[in-house]
């Protein structure tokens, strides 16, 4: 999932300064049960259902389905493709992410702010939209190949993004921000004095890099890489857009095809695949967690953003390379997509007489499905955001009071649905909510409410992490000062705590709402007519070959996200100025 980095960045801070809050005893016990029971039901029970289904046979419990699936060539083909795509895209993400982070953290390259924003874009624009944009740039009839053909005078195909290589490239480009973020944070926190000490001990700058900087940054780099790897396994949009047409299955698309194509009878097989995928992802998450704990750079130490290396004459070269890279990987695909959306019929040259607004008008005005989807996605984003905001903040507050094993366990449970690939969670949700308690069928399967439950379950941890950062920063004494000054519960929250927790709460809200608004994986499994989301509609257009329509809707989404970002940025700047006086 695109926003995993946030989870890990805050993990460490939460671990660093846990505090022991106090509350009256009876309350404490009641709150304990109030948290424990729902957590077990919403977060652990669905996964239990999944495991049970995978080992259920006609005669009882057994590994029948497992052995059937493990004997199937398609399973191993999907596992192979999943691993190859995840590993190679991680390598690409590492190369790009580390280079960019080093340039931004240590050198005197200009325009760091702009580079930073551009590097964050792949996290904010949903990967299936980015994939769609890439198909418009580097597909068989894309801008790149047409330009090459025009140059050569005959039809040439320079590169075709459909296929495993395309999946790897687009995945790598979608996930390098994760590596970039974590590496940047570590590089900033390596004290300059350590490098100076090495130099004054006689080390040349090359050995300083090899013996001091890299070993210290390695845990951060490696954990960014693992995050990219997990996200690669999780991703559904990229292999769905690029792999399904080319006949290349990965685990997430294979699960999807099982559930959609073969209906409930295939749930058992899909469950086995889900467990395969889930176990691989959890191993990655576990490794990453260990690495973060092992990190030798103090996460709480101050960031040092001063220039450490002057590039000299090579600066122009570096700036040019970075600029070209960002232009080709971010702007050009999006521009290609926008141009497709503006063209009367797919394949016509980009000339004034071929331009039209009709695709935009069609998706916004005439196509009922899209209108419904926009309404659904807005509703889902809003409700998911608000529910996560309230529940997540209260959970974070409760959690910080409990550095105990119970607190750790519940937090682990809440983060499970996010650590697991979306397809796995989607399937577990279907299994659970068709009949949550034996004999009770709430009839929400296929409705938007089912998707809402799935979203809240999956994205709650994002809000918990964001709120945790703020709550830890504010600290215990500020609340105690309000208590001792006579502030009762309501006064404390409304006058003191909420205003101070607001930055973290709003960051979380923004993250959750954006993620929910453009979500594809879960909704592609859970939707049915009337409950489709924007992601599902774009995916549907694409599968039906209506590329101009999917491009138009995607272009609108990207525009909306960019406007939102700009507004958010301006608001944040205003807020900071006010707080700092």
């Amino acid at each position: 999932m695109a926003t995993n980095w946030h989870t890990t960045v805050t993990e460490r801070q939460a671990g660093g300064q846990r505090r022991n809050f106090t509350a009256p005893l009876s309350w404490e016990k009641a709150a304990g049960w109030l948290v424990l029971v729902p957590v077990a039901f919403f977060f652990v029970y669905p996964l239990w259902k999944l495991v049970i289904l995978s080992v259920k046979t006609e005669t009882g419990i057994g590994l029948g389905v497992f052995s059937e699936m493990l004997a199937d060539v398609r399973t191993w083909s999907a596992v192979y493709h999943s691993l190859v795509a995840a590993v190679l895209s991680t390598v690409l993400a590492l190369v790009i992410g580390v280079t960019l982070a080093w340039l931004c953290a240590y050198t005197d390259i200009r325009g760091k702010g702009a580079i930073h924003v551009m590097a964050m874009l792949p996290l904010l624009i949903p990967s299936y939209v980015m994939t769609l944009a890439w198909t418009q740039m580097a597909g068989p009839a894309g801008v790149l190949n047409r330009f090459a053909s025009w140059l050569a005078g005959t039809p040439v195909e320079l590169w075709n993004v459909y296929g495993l290589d395309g999946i790897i490239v687009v995945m790598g480009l979608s996930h390098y921000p994760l590596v970039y973020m974590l590496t940047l944070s570590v590089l900033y926190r390596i004290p300059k004095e350590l490098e100076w000490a090495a130099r004054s001990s006689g080390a040349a700058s090359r050995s300083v890099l090899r013996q001091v900087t890299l070993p210290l940054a390695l845990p951060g780099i490696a954990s960014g890489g693992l995050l990219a790897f997990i996200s690669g396994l999780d991703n559904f949009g990229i292999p769905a857009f690029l792999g399904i047409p080319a006949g290349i299955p990965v685990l997430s698309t294979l699960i999807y095809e099982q559930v959609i194509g073969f209906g409930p009878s295939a749930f058992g097989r899909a469950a086995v695949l889900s467990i395969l995928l889930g176990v691989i992802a959890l191993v990655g998450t576990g490794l990453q967690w260990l690495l973060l704990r092992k990190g030798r750079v103090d996460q709480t130490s101050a960031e040092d953003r001063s220039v450490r290396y002057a590039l000299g004459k090579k600066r122009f070269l570096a700036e040019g390379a970075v600029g070209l890279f960002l232009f080709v990987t971010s702007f050009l695909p999006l521009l290609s997509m926008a141009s497709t959306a503006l063209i009367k019929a797919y394949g016509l040259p980009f000339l004034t007489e071929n331009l039209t607004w009709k695709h935009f008008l069609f998706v916004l005005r005439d196509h009922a499905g899209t209108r419904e989807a926009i309404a659904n996605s807005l509703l889902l984003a809003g409700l998911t955001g608000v529910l996560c905001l309230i529940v997540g903040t209260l959970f974070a507050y409760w959690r910080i009071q409990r550095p105990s094993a119970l607190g750790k366990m519940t937090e682990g449970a809440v983060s499970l649905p996010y650590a697991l690939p979306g397809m796995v969670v989607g399937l577990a949700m279907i299994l659970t909510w068709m009949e949550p308690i034996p004999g009770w069928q709430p009839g929400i399967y296929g409705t938007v409410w089912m998707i809402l439950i799935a979203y809240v379950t999956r994205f709650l941890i994002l809000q918990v992490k964001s709120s945790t950062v703020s709550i830890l920063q504010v600290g215990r004494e500020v609340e105690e000062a309000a208590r001792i000054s006579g502030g009762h519960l309501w006064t404390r929250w409304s006058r003191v705590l909420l205003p101070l927790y607001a930055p973290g709460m709003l960051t979380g809200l923004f993250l959750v709402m954006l993620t929910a608004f453009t979500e594809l994986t879960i909704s592609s499994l859970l939707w049915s007519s009337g409950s489709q989301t924007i992601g599902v509609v774009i995916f549907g257009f694409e599968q039906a070959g209506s590329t101009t329509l999917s491009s138009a809707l995607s272009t609108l989404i990207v525009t909306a996200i960019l406007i939102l970002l700009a507004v958010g940025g301006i608001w944040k700047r205003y807020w900071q100025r006010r707080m700092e006086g």
Partner: protein
Amino acid sequence: MNEARVIGVSKRFGEVVALHQIDVHIGRGEFVALLGPSGCGKTTLLRLLAGFESPSSGEIWLNQKLVADKDERISPEQRRIGMVFQSFALWPHLTVYENVAFPLRHQEHIPEEFKRNPRARVAQMLEMVGLGGMEQRYPSQLSGGQKQRVALARAIVFNPTLLLMDEPLSSLDAELRIQMRKEIQHIHRELGTSIVYVTHDQSEALAMADKIIVMRGGRVEQEGTPHEIYYAPQSPFVAKFVGRANFVKGSWADSSTFLLEREGQTSLPVRVAQDLTPFHRDQVLPVRPDQIRLHPWQEGLDGVRGRVQHVQFQGRELLYSIQVGEEEWEVSTDIATRFTYGDQVAVELVV
């Protein structure tokens, strides 16, 4: 009015016992310092008084009213207590005025005139702590010392039953600490509120308190006036922790005569005026660095011979380390007494 009692209070956190059967009385208008090293339980005791924790056993009384025992506890917001936190704990999103006026709006039993005209009361308090006219500033615009004053004003603005201070000066620099001591004394005189002041800095406790309670390992080690604590320590721990002390080896002949051990000579009797019974068992005499005089050594003198190991110039005084037999004694003298490294000196005890 305005008194607090802690009766037989113990506090356990899981396996750890933070307080063992503590009895403390804070009299009306009294300034009591809880003094001890970190982990001695002084902050736990303060938090029990504030109401942030419940005692595991025992009772806490405020103004002849039971506020907490092991079963029930009146919450902090209902105790009418003022508290100054180590980290100041000002609310960064509120102005100085809003910070200080907060208790006036939310505390119980606020005098009618304060409620009617909170602006005047806040202005008066800010004037008292030397921040007149700073109402509209935000905490981020204040220096450390100014923040501490706002925290103090907030704690006293509503005439609290009891004022609790948790190491309030520990995050300030040395010069400011000395100045704030005077201000706290001034406020104590003006308001007459009982104060419980937690600190690990013995000089703060000696300077301001009416009564010092020295704590160690969750128990009260000694309780008394600053003078008693300094000059009549009841245990080696207190002698060492409050001010510096040399433990001179020898033996007690009787309660007022200490026989000082000397290398190669007969022991030297020293007259002791105070009661130092607690030190009889260990056969030591506690001697403060300023209770020792140094003289030039002359052969044939019947005194204690020492050798200068270190000299540190401190401005007003000189700090010597004197090797006496196997021991090293700390001695402080006025700057007129000048010796250098390696000098032989005669050491005289004035206890």
